[in-house]
């Protein structure tokens, strides 16, 4: 047999094994079972199936991938190889099922449940094992086909599938909105969307629509773009204004018709954007990995708590609006305080030291030692909500003050506050980035010693990075404190810092739109969908690793970071192209 063929089939088997193990992993961790409860296409495919199918498809896809230096193989052989790897993956899963029918795997792995077996066997019991093998082989073949088809066909197909996935995911959120409007929207809502996913009809329509649009765009898109570029400048600007105007109108009116849940999600996203913008200065611009970022958040929250609470730990009873500048200032100072000791440290050590600080702050805030002032493990409760109007006097312990005006009581009202703050802070951050200070930060990130030699005052610049980042986090903490109404030291965990770090990494270090994208993806998804929230940190961890391996610049990279990581220069030894002695 041809050597190339042998190599490819060997690769197919290996890839199939790995794919099978990945699918098995997804089953054992419980992702398949828990996501299996949410359907993508009503009555047909659940999200759990999607995870399984994706891994099977991926084996075929990877098997059919060629490295540029290898001789090309015919499409038929590649599809065959894909089929083999899919089948191998299917065998792994089938073996798991056979084993499960003999011994009680559930005693060890809690998610090896009857529900899981039902999903794996497509509801057909042990006979489903053969079906599983067939599906594996078919998906492997499909994956390989997708890889080898010409881009003209490949793109619309792939985007069509992705479209079904995305639309189906959000169908559950969109449907109530449509159904609430009688007439055409209601009928449309009922026809296209099921309770949680798409109906079969809806799926078909979505696929055809998106595939069609993509096919059209790749065929005619360039001409359309060229024609728009020929428009007079005023016309192009008008187009942009229309776009932003629509987005703005949507953002402003969303809480009115969407209900408190979506408003809450967006508030949390905005708060995370605020924190992300803060860490973006410290880590994204200045390159200082601060894992104790939650400490500054805590400072803002506790300041608001202690100064506005009508509970037993309220030191004073000032209105929220007056306290916010104080909270920002406090966080600003604490930023200096925690930044001073670590000025000389670099890289890994800085990360661990700041992590230590964050933990020390949490432990002290929740200890009984400082409990007299900070509330101890019970925390500070009874935080006054912000009032657009005149706030009545402090009446007594535990009694909220009356607001003569509009009280920003719930997520729907705080929504506007959060979004306005996020926009303001984003503006400030972008001005900082383009300022002399911003350039000094980026110089430090590239190489501290050279920066110092060129006249950058390391102490001042680093401290300002910490302080400004801290002040944004303080603002975020302040709004959070008043949103929730109570603060507990146990919620100021390392996880919050890691959350923000992930946000920035996934969105794009040093990139302001990247922070927004990161927050939308990493906070929006788990908040909106309970299943994701269950596996939140699993996804975060995987996202970090995958991002570092595949796209270190993030989803929306800043152009400067791209140049630094040599991502825009082909054939360079960037992290993606690092030569390894194995492989």
């Amino acid at each position, binding site marked *: 047999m041809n050597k190339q063929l042998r190599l490819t089939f060997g690769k197919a088997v290996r890839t199939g094994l790995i794919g099978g193990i990945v699918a098995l*992993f997804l089953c054992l*961790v419980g*992702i398949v079972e828990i996501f299996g409860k949410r359907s993508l296409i009503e009555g047909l495919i659940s999200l759990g199936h999607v995870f399984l199918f994706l891994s099977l498809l991926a084996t075929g896809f990877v098997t059919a991938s060629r490295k540029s230096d290898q001789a090309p193989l015919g499409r038929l052989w590649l599809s065959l190889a894909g089929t083999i790897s899919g089948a191998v993956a299917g065998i792994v899963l089938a073996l798991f099922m056979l084993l499960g029918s003999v011994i009680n795997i559930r005693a060890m792995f*809690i*998610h090896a449940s009857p529900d899981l077996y039902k999903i794996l066997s497509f509801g057909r019991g042990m006979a489903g094992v053969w079906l599983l093998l067939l599906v594996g082989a078919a998906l492997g073949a499909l994956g390989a086909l997708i890889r080898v088809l010409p881009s003209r066909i490949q793109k619309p197909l792939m985007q069509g599938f992705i479209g079904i996935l995305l639309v189906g995911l959000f169908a559950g959120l969109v449907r109530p909105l449509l159904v609430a409007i009688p007439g055409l929207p209601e009928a449309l809502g009922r026809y296209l969307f099921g309770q949680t996913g798409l109906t079969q009809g809806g799926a078909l329509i979505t696929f055809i629509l998106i595939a069609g649009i993509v096919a059209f765009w790749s065929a005619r898109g360039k001409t359309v773009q060229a024609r728009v570029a020929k428009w007079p400048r005023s016309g192009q600007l008008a187009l942009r204004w229309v776009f932003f105007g629509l987005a703005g109108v949507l953002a402003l009116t969303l809480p009115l018709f969407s209900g408190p849940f979506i408003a809450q999600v967006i508030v949390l996203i905005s708060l995370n954007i605020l924190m992300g913008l803060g860490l973006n200065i410290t880590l994204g611009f200045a*390159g200082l*990995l601060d894992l104790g970022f939650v400490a500054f958040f805590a400072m803002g929250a506790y300041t608001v708590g202690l100064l506005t609470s009508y509970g037993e730990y309220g030191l004073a009873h000032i209105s929220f609006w007056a306290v916010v500048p104080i909270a920002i200032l406090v966080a600003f100072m604490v930023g200096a305080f925690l930044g*001073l*000791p*670590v*000025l*000389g*440290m*670099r*890289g*890994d*050590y800085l*990360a*661990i*030291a700041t*992590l*230590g*600080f964050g*933990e*020390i702050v949490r*432990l*002290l805030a*929740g*200890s*009984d*030692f400082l409990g007299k002032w900070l509330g101890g493990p019970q925390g500070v409760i009874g935080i006054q909500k912000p009032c657009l109007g005149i706030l009545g006097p402090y009446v007594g312990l535990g009694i909220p003050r009356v607001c003569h005006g509009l009280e920003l009581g719930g997520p729907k009202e705080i929504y506007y506050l959060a979004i306005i703050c996020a926009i303001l802070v984003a503006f400030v951050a972008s001005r900082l980035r383009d300022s002399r200070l911003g350039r000094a930060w980026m110089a430090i990130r590239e190489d*501290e*010693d050279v920066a110092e*030699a060129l*006249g950058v*005052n390391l*102490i*001042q610049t680093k401290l300002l990075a910490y302080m400004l980042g801290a002040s944004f986090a303080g603002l975020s903490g302040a709004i959070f404190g008043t949103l929730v109404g109570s603060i507990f030291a146990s919620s100021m965990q390392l996880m919050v810092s*890691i959350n923000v*770090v992930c946000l920035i990494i996934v969105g794009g270090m040093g990139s302001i739109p990247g922070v927004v994208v990161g927050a939308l993806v990493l906070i929006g998804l788990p908040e909106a969908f309970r299943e994701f929230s269950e*596996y*939140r*940190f*699993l996804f*975060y*961890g*995987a996202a*970090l*690793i995958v*991002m*570092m*391996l595949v796209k270190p610049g993030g989803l929306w990279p800043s152009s400067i970071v791209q140049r*630094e*990581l040599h991502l825009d220069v082909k054939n360079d*030894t*960037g*992290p993606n192209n*690092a030569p*390894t*002695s194995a492989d």
Partner: protein
Amino acid sequence: MRTTLTEKIGEVAVAVFLWGFRILVVSVVIIGTILTIREGKYTGVQWIDFIVFGIARGSIYAMIALGYTMVYGILRMINFAHSEVFMSGAFGGYFLANAMGQSGFLDKYPVLGLVAAVLVGMLVSAGVALLVERIAYRPLRKAPRLVPLISAIGASFFLQYTFRGFFGPGIYAYPNVKVLSGEWNIFGIGILKMQVVVAVAAFIMMAVLYTIVMRTKIGKAMRAVSENKDVAALMGIDVDGIIVATFGVGAAMAGAAGVLYALMFRQVNFFMGFTPGIKAFTSAVLGGIGNVPGAMVGGIVLGIFESIGPALFLDGLGIIRPYQLQDAIAYIMLVMVLLFRPSGIVGEKLTTKKA
């Protein structure tokens, strides 16, 4: 370049601040200690209890620290996922130990049973570490410093929640080994058997590791690679293989430590690796990162300090429920070491190396 006035003020401010911090910590320790001893709240037996407990716990930290220090020596990166390697060893040993405990095997042949559990723990954690190295670290070896660090943090969380997904968020209890419960009477003082066994086992394993690193050919290769990777390659050493071996050995130590920790504290949980991991890293830095005997010393020192700390100086200062701040002591020690003596007690100057 001539420094400006603001720069000079800045440097003075930093120096004052750091000195103030040193003085604060030292005076807290000294004053607290004096007050406690004057009050005489704790008897000699209680102090001995604290110290023995500290040695036992510290030797576990030391074993984990070995993994951190060896990987740092070779790759110049902190293996954030090492704490999860420790946890996976505890889980690995758990299922075997539980089965043995329930069938009564553990009571009949305790030594064999425990050794088997430790071995399984070592195997599982070595496997996990090798996977992590292959997937999350090896492709990123030539990347800028921040990239593998972030990948390591991601790997750490991924592993934590993988184990949570596999085995649930609950706490699993190791079986009670009858032979190890109770006390021995040494020089008239009652010392918990479990703690002695853990400490002795840890010492034995660390001695074995030390012999491997110092006396065998592979140990020599490890030391060579940690001195200079490229020259070692020129000398004909298979660098990738040695890196894998280092990860494996460090992980095996951590896995054994996991089983010992679980035997001592009887609890296994997906999050158990976090705090011991940080403390082990502190021990590694205390002893001088990259320095194998230093890590062992650092672990014991940290263990003792954290054990007698709350009683010794916090209590004297009138802090109620000082044990809540026990972890804070470890974190403060970490920060102090990183700030003031990053080369550690035994010493190796690596922190100011260029990122």
